[in-house]
């Protein structure tokens, strides 16, 4: 494998490595810490997602990797080489911008050819690559159109083709799907996944949409307030969030008070579970997470190992029914019960119910 400058790249596992990067913006005398001591290693050929609410620093991190913002502290390495001070036009990294940033004065084909021209590729190779890219994103028919004459979804494809054409080491995608409607977004999610596996390029994807992150990524980094809170596969992030913020941001959550003692945790509501607590959590009072779909509910009084509750509201939502319950301890609890044929009767509003939490469903959180 060779990079843009033609040098051969040693076959290391890590493509992009952020090493204790901080980015401080000065805004009218105030210091804004957009990135706070961020370290993360992104593997080659990985679909890596930076997930977080707006203002969490995910776009700043992307801009540091692209070279638009120099890090205030720390180092950025690409294939082991420090590129922190390299200008964006010398990095073998391309970006799909949030608003696509297509050149409005050029045709679709000229947009895609731009990066290749800048790299000084011969004309024949450029036109061949442009055609390949147009085919890859299924836009052959619109080759000569102006970018202002095509729809948002098509612009999205052109932006992708333009960024992929120079075959970068790393492709950065800054919320590229946020401007599309739901149906198109779903299509593009699958499309992006396909492109990533076909091209074998490392994708770093920024989004605030947790569902998007879970469906597309190999690994997800959840960010908040300029820090990376947790990095892991979508499964790990969802099933074993380390912190309350991560649990809350991804999926629906119930947070219950509990007491941790070694590897067993006892809910305030009664019942003890075996757990593997995350690092840095001491014995004593803790918060635990139970996903609403990991609890079952049956009508009537609570038996052994069940939690007593009263149903407050029942919300039918097609594929599932969500019950809002109040536990005997006064804590609120949401349970999501799938609507399958013969799934039994559910308690009605105001009735007593028993909540059954599966043994592996309790996760201790680091607050």
């Amino acid at each position: 494998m060779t990079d843009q400058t033609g040098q051969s790249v040693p076959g290391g596992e890590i493509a992009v490595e952020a090493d204790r990067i901080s980015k401080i913006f000065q805004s009218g005398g105030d210091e804004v810490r957009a990135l706070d001591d961020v370290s993360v290693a992104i593997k080659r050929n990985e679909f890596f997602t930076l997930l977080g609410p707006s203002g969490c620093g995910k776009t700043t991190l992307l801009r540091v990797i692209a070279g638009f913002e120099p890090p205030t502290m720390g180092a950025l390495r690409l294939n082991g080489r420090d590129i922190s001070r390299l200008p964006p036009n010398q990095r073998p990294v391309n970006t799909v911008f949030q608003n696509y940033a297509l050149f409005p004065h050029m045709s679709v084909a000229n947009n895609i050819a731009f990066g290749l021209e800048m790299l000084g590729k011969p004309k024949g190779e450029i036109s061949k690559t442009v055609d390949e890219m147009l085919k890859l994103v299924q836009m052959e028919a619109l080759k000569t159109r102006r970018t202002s004459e095509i729809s948002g979804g098509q612009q999205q494809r052109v932006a992708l083709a333009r960024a992929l054409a120079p075959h970068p080491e790393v492709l950065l995608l800054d919320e590229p799907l946020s401007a599309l409607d739901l149906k198109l977004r779903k299509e593009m999610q699958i499309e992006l996944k396909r492109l990533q596996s076909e091209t074998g390029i490392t994708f770093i994807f920024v989004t605030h949409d947790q569902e998007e992150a879970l469906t597309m990524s190999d690994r997800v980094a959840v960010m908040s307030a300029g820090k990376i809170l947790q990095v892991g596969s979508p499964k790990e992030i969802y099933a074993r969030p380390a912190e309350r913020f991560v649990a809350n941001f991804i999926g629906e959550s119930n947070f219950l008070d509990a007491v941790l003692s070694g590897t067993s945790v006892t809910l305030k509501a009664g019942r003890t579970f075996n757990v593997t607590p995350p690092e840095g959590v001491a014995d004593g009072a803790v918060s635990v997470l139970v996903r609403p779909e990991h609890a079952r509910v049956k009508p009537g009084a609570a038996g052994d190992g069940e939690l007593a509750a009263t149903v407050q509201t029942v919300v039918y939502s097609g594929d599932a029914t969500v019950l809002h319950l109040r536990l005997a301890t006064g804590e609120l609890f949401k349970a999501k019960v799938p609507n399958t044929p013969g799934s039994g009767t559910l308690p009605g509003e105001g009735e007593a119910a028993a909540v059954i939490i599966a043994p592996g469903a309790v996760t201790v959180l680091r607050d």
Partner: protein
Amino acid sequence: MSDAGQSGSYEPGTLEREAASAETRKRWLLSLPAVVIIVLAAAGPLLVMVVYSFLAPGDYGNVKWEFSTDGWTSILMQRDIFDDTLQWADAHLSIFWRSLSLSLITTVSTLLIGVPTAWFIATRPPGKREFWLFLITVPFWTNLLVRTIAIQELIRAEGVINLVLLRLHIIQEPIQMMFTNFAIGFGMTYVYLPLMVLPVYAAVDKLDFRLVEAAHDLYAGRWVAFRRVILPLIKPGIIAGSILVFIPSLGAYVTPRVLGGGKNLMFGNLIELQFGAGRNWPLGAALSLTLMAGVMVALIWYVRVTSREERNG
């Protein structure tokens, strides 16, 4: 309101038609002030010029009401005072040429100074741009003549520039700048610079800087990004600014008069001369119309050329 689908069962009545025509009359009435202004301010004087250019000059200015093409022929010809034959005269032509070249030089120099200036202002933080724009517009508050005389103070033999250069021993004798083409170009560049800066500023202000980032991201260096992305996108502003500078430069009158003296005439001075001391109103009218036609041709050519480039981009 009659619906097309119902036209079979319902004919628009005379009442409606009358209402419609009243509506049309009202519209005409509303546009009347505009029509009057256009006729009085544009078409009228133009017509007077066309008529005057085909009349004979009066003895003390004004015109004699008899048909003559002398106004037009004397643009490039001269009637010999002895044998009354027409002869080729290039005096006017050299003035045309000076006007044209000085206007082009002015346009280019305002571009060279104006584009970076506009860029500078447009890239200031939002709150600070007004201040710089304000500075750009300050000269408009002062009379053109006063500003031109101020320039004279700068460039005359005992002026600021010469004094500084003499004191610094860079020159031994004052440089003659007054009453040269340089003086005219310098003055016009100064006078017309805001007309370049403002439209270019508007264009740069509208420029999406993410496109510049995209260019850098796609391996373009600073200069290539400017040439391939920024320049084509701010071109409308550059075109507008160039037109706004070039046209008044071509007809400039005060600046060449004050800074160029009596020898370095420009087109505007030539026209003024015919209506003043020259007492040849028909020639003045013909010269004015020639200037207008020239400007129009130049404009059409310029817009054609620049928009064709854009299509090829």
